[in-house]
């Protein structure tokens, strides 16, 4: 046992971030909240629905600025999703905001029926998802959400990697005429994109070119893949890094291209290794006739190791060092 990790990044990883000129931004959750507030000030039909979660969702300023555009339902996630659906059915652009662990488990049936099957243009926002709540334990982890949501028809699933993708994901969701789910963590994130980057839901963004290993990553793990690619470049390996910000619909073209052009493929996600990005990529490659050395890096099917998010990431190899090791083994 050791004390909680003080940082997500080792000194070597921090040095690589500096070398790659990555600047630290804010938490994606904060970017979400300020983007939503900005949009809601211009559009009174935007309504945030919270389950005693306005603090966790960084929506307290939204609530103060726009008290008529926030609905508090108390600690009642099933009710939150039903109300979000009813608002959307009556012309509101409703955003149901609740911790990912509760939102996508306790109220899964409401997501399936009230939002997706009824086809209302509501947005669900899973906050503090994955292992963001770290040492609070498995009750507060959402490592199942992508798997269960992928299995529901009529839902766009977005997992932004940095502040830029978070901003763009909310702009997309606010305009969407179909149901959408957006997943956020709560750690401050490095900015990975240039402001002029083109963002389109369903189209992956290639952050770095290369044909040795393709890292296909999503959400808060993308930065680790980028750092690993930087580290591997110093060993003479050119690695591709793809930010798969949309889990559904999946950019199968980018996956097949990477599979065909690279010597190996590694997927990275803050999710159980079952049912998430990794298995979606594996399915795409196999059905596309592409057979390359392949690894899914994520949380294995076991009781998750106790610890902070940084501890858990490092424990399971979701780090610059861990991904370099996985790449080296895969290319042997």
């Amino acid at each position, binding site marked *: 046992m050791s004390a909680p990790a003080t940082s997500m990044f080792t000194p070597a990883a921090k040095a690589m971030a500096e070398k790659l000129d990555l600047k630290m931004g804010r938490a994606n959750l904060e970017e979400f909240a300020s983007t939503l507030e900005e949009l809601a000030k211009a559009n009174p039909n935007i*309504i945030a629905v919270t389950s005693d979660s306005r603090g966790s969702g960084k929506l307290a300023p939204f609530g103060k600025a726009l008290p*008529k555009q926030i*609905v508090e*339902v*108390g600690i*009642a996630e*099933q*009710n939150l*999703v*039903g*109300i*979000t*659906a*009813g*608002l*959307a*059915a*009556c*012309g*509101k652009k*409703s955003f149901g905001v609740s911790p990912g662990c509760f939102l996508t488990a306790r109220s899964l*049936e*409401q997501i399936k*029926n*009230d939002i997706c*099957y*009824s*086809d209302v243009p509501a947005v669900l926002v899973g906050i503090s998802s994955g292992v963001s709540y770290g040492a609070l334990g498995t009750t507060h982890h959402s490592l199942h959400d992508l798997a269960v949501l992928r299995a529901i028809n009529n839902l766009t699933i977005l997992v932004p990697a940095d502040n830029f993708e978070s901003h763009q994901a909310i702009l997309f969701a606010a305009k969407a005429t179909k149901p959408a789910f957006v997943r956020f963590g709560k750690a401050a994130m490095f900015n990975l994109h240039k402001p002029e980057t083109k963002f389109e839901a369903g189209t992956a963004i290639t952050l770095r070119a290369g044909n040795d290993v393709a890292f296909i990553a999503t959400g808060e793990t993308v930065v680790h893949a980028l750092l690993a690619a930087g580290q591997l470049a110093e060993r003479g390996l050119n690695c591709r890094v793809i930010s798969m910000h949309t889990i559904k619909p999946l950019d199968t073209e980018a996956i097949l291209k990477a599979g065909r052009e690279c010597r190996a493929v590694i997927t990275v996600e803050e999710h159980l290794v079952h049912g998430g990005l990794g298995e979606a990529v594996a399915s795409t490659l196999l059905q596309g006739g592409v057979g390359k050395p392949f690894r899914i890096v994520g949380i294995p099917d076991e009781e998750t190791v106790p610890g902070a998010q940084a501890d858990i990431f490092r424990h399971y190899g979701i780090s610059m060092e861990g991904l370099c090791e996985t790449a080296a083994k895969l290319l042997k």
Partner: protein
Amino acid sequence: MKSSLTDQELQLKAVALRRAMLRLIVNAGAGHTGGGLSCLDILNVLYNRVLNVSPQTFTSPTRDRYVQSKGHCVEALYAVLADCGFFPAADLDTVCHYQSHYVGHPTRHIPGIEMNTGALGHGLPICIGMALAGKMDSANYRVFTLLGDGELAEGSNWEAGLAAAHYKLDNLTAIIDHNTLQISGHTRDVMSNDPLDEKWRAFGWAVKVVSGHDYAALTEALSQPAEIGKPTCIIANTTKGKGVSFMENVAKWHHGVPSEAELKQALAELDAAEAKLKTSEK
């Protein structure tokens, strides 16, 4: 859709609707017969006397909304919507058939249906969202939902019960089809929810208890919110299988499908009820 039909004319319509419902269930080979018959009079009054909605106004933002939380009784709703002209009555011949959108629970593919329901405990939260939207827009539409009494074991209803009172949603009316039976038997044996009226009052709702087959009482209870600043709960005491003697208060008719002989007998009873109503009309 407000008509000028008298109680007696509506009762005659109810006979025709029961007939249509039974026929479509037999044709579909599936359906929730007992609960459909218990809630049919409520739907008849709602659509012909209370709801401000018609095929022509169904897309109007200011229409009244009805969400059938006890979605399994869709056959009664299909019969009423067809009668009101939301879709051709011939469509009822396709219920539960391959590639027909008229599936065994309500979906928005069907004109007149607001939300997809069928899993229980969903209608009331959805209606709170609809009622809140109405309040936000200062629109004067009302929102109605129909719940089964067995359905009340779903905890989401009670989450919603708190929220509706918290937000003082007097534009919301929940009707409970209190037929006291569910698929496994008497609700009091499966999971008792008595006293229902006291529970809803304790949650901050205005409560009315009426006979769910009394047209005058239903009309009076449904025509306006019971109390300003409170959501309305109408406990409609009904008979499961109402109108067909051998189906009344028999749990097996929850989703029993009549045989041809049983249908014949049921239709004969409805013919007799119709004749009696017509005689009393004279």
